[in-house]
C-alpha cells in the first residue's frame, strides 16, 4: 500500500519568504508527526496531531512555524519569514493510534534550503 508522502521533495527559497510543506499520511492513520532533521543530527520533534487537533506543539521553535491538519488527514507545515537556520530536512510520520508502542511510518522528507 501507499506510504507516507511529502511534497515537495526539495525546496529552495530566499530568506524572508514563506514556505508550505505538505504531508500525506497513510490512509486511516490518526496520528501525524512533524520532525526537523539538521545535518548530522537525529530528528527533532516539532508537532504532533491526533486527528485534526495539535495534541502537542511544544517542539515548534517559534511563532514563525505553524502546522494544520484541517480534515484529519493531509497536514501542512507553514514557515513564515524563513531564516537560513531553518534549512534542514523536514520529516513527516504517521501512526495508527497514540499508544507508546505505535510504530511511526516516515515519509522521505522535504529538504529545505534557505538562501
Amino acid at each position, binding site marked *: 500500500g501507499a*506510504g*507516507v508522502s511529502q511534497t515537495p521533495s526539495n525546496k529552495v527559497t530566499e530568506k524572508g519568504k514563506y514556505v508550505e510543506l505538505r504531508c500525506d499520511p497513510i490512509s486511516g492513520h490518526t*496520528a501525524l*508527526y512533524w*520532525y526537523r532533521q539538521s545535518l*548530522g*543530527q*537525529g*530528528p*527533532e*520533534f516539532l508537532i*504532533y496531531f*491526533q486527528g485534526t487537533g495539535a*495534541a*502537542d506543539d511544544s517542539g515548534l521553535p517559534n511563532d514563525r512555524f505553524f502546522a494544520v491538519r484541517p480534515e484529519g488527514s493531509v497536514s501542512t507545515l507553514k514557515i513564515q519569514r524563513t531564516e537560513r537556520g531553518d534549512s534542514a530536512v523536514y*520529516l513527516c*510520520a504517521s*501512526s495508527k493510534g*497514540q*499508544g*507508546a*508502542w*505505535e*510504530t*511511526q*511510518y*516516515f*515519509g*522521505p*522528507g522535504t529538504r529545505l534550503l534557505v538562501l
Partner: protein
Amino acid sequence: AQSVTQLDSHVSVSEGTPVLLRCNYSSSYSPSLFWYVQHPNKGLQLLLKYTSAATLVKGINGFEAEFKKSETSFHLTKPSAHMSDAAEYFCVVSTISGGYQKVTFGTGTKLQVIP
C-alpha cells in the same frame, strides 16, 4: 522527562564481524523503545521495537536488541555485518505523557562496514 543517549556517533566494523550499537535511555514512565535505520537519501525504516513483552527483540535483516531495565539500555546487535548494513541508526524512546505519545530520538550512530 525522557532522553536517549547513543554512545557512539560512528562505528566501523569489518564485513562478517559482529555489530554493537549502544543506546541508553532515561524515562519517568515505562517506555517503548525502537531502533530505526536511515540509508543515504532514504526514509527512516523501523528495524525493531520493544513494547514490554519479550526483552529480547528480533528485527529485520538479522538485527536484534535486548531491553535491560536495570541498565536502562537497549543495545542493537547483529552477529555478522553485511555491506548493505552501512547506514545511520537511531534509537528512540516513546512514552505516554498527558495522554499522548511522546517520542524522543537519539542523535544517531553512523555504521561503516569495511569490505
